[in-house]
């Protein structure tokens, strides 16, 4: 498996605060990789750096062999690198189906493509994905009227609709009813198995991470603390200390 995402010595500071310090990690194609660490360890900042929300202060980020640290968010998204948000961002006033339709891959930027009707293939695909996440019955409702958990599922479906190669998920199970988490984890795995999407997941829920990820990176205080197989990282004394010692 080739390296799809290579992060090398990435640093980011906000004013006087160092959010990331020389972080390096690799995500191989087809993997499910987890990113863990106590609150404030710089996980979301790293995600933001990768997807281009802000420029980095040092280091390099390569996606599929191509340097992306200087690209803008939309360009990186069109290369196939999609992220979901911790607070769950969807288009609240549009219906779920419209949310899906607007999420189609945006490669073709010609005027003709922009003023075309949504293709019936796209519509069918959207309905399929809505069924995949169990939101078929909500397809015509305004996305803002869904419950938080349903919005998370919608965001996930929208991300899938965009046909990414790498999907960055920021705490996908946060705030979800524990009884529904298994279903979500199952869908995440299926997204990788059936759709070939590589996943890079920030998670706080240890059970989920152990179940889902094949390789884990642990950040603490903005630095990479440990990485390896889930069982190894889980038992690494440094990781335990970071979590227990963190305020």
């Amino acid at each position, binding site marked *: 498996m080739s390296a799809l995402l290579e992060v090398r010595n990435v640093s980011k500071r906000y004013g006087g605060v160092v959010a990331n310090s020389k972080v390096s990690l690799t995500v191989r194609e087809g993997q499910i990789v987890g990113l863990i660490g106590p609150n404030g360890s710089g996980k979301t900042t790293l995600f933001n750096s990768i*997807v281009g929300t802000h420029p980095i202060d040092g280091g390099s980020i390569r996606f599929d062999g191509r340097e992306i640290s200087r690209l*803008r*968010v*939309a360009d990186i*998204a*069109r290369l196939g690198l*999609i*992220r979901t*948000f911790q607070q769950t*961002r*969807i*288009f*609240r*006033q*549009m*219906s779920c*189906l*419209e949310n899906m*339709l*607007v*999420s*189609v*891959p*945006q490669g073709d*930027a010609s*005027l003709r*493509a*922009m*003023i*075309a*009707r*949504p293709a*019936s293939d796209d*519509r069918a695909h959207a309905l399929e994905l809505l069924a995949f996440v169990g939101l078929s019955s909500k397809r*015509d409702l*305004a996305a803002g009227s869904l419950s938080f958990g349903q919005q998370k599922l919608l965001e996930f479906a*929208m991300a899938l609709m*965009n046909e990414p190669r790498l999907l960055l998920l920021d705490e996908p199970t946060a705030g979800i009813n524990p009884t529904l988490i298994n279903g979500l984890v199952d869908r995440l795995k299926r997204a990788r198995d059936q759709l070939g999407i590589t996943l890079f997941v920030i998670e706080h829920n240890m059970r989920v991470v152990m179940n889902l990820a094949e390789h884990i990176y642990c950040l603490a205080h903005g630095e990479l603390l440990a990485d390896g197989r889930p069982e190894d990282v889980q038992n690494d004394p440094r990781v335990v200390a970071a979590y227990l010692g963190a305020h």
Partner: protein
Amino acid sequence: MMPAWAKRWRLRALETVARCVPFALLVLRIILRWLPPALLALGIAAPFLLPSFQVQLTFLWIMIVFALCWDILGGQMGYNSFGNIAFFGIGVYTATIVQIGLFQDVAAYTAAAGMQTISLTPDQYFEGLFIGLAAAPVLAVIVAVVLGLALLDLRGHYFAIATLGLGIAAGELAAAWTFVGGSSGVQVPVYPGSLQSGRLLFYFLSAALCITTFITLRWLYTTRFGLAINAIRDDEDKAEALGLHTTRYKIIAWCIGAVFLGLAGGLVGHIIGFIDPREVAFAGASFGVWMILMAILGGKGTLWGPVIGAVIFHVMRELFWTYLFGWQNVAMGVLIVVVVVFFPFGILGWLRRRYPQLFVRDAAQPGAAE
């Protein structure tokens, strides 16, 4: 406790009503389906039915164009612009200057500040008119692209205020530019024919413009473009994160508004007969802010909202003018404040909250109940 006979009566009454409801809904649907053609027929007949109101009716069509054009940017895309009037003003000036310039020296004409008259033969007038009307939206779009690239990076209230500055700056620049008459403005060539035929011509041109605008937008909102601009409104960062070419969509939306506003400007210049840079062309404090008001009053972000808002607004304005003369501008100011403070969602917005089932929109099919 109701006596048994009363209970039976009440039950019968409710049953009858319940049975009538589907029928009533059917009637309502028929009415809504035939409403646009009926309105169209009414629109065509109107200037003949109400000859003394021809000019006001003409302006009604123009007002609807104003509201629809503002709504593309403000209601559908969430970019509240206070400066769309700039494109209108460009259209006003372009159409007339081109028309004059084809047959006479513009600089000399404007320098004479009304002392020099211009007499065009009917052929010249119409040729000039139509070339002018063709040039107006072209220039408006060119300016729109340039300005859009600069301004559409701004968000929220910064965009609103920057466009406000733009609208007023345009008026001031026009008032300072002697080639287009400076503060004295430009006298538009007089229509070579009877007053009545001139009014009818511009009435139907305005109506045609309005209907074209409406149909174009109705189609546009069912396309991917419509979805994209709504997404930009709801969460622009998320739209970017999904790879949408937000800048491109924003500029196209801006330009579409510019085209129709430019055309409207070309027409209004000729309807009024005189171009004043601050009062007619770049009338920010009147047309400019009314555009916003009408769309909000009717319900921004919907297709019919701006139309309804424009009709109500225009009628109220005419009533104020007739019955509150002297105080009509104060009344307009009060109206603005009242609408914005108490009805920010507008009529259709209020309806949508009360009866959401009426507003189900299917993106893959042409406009439904809206």
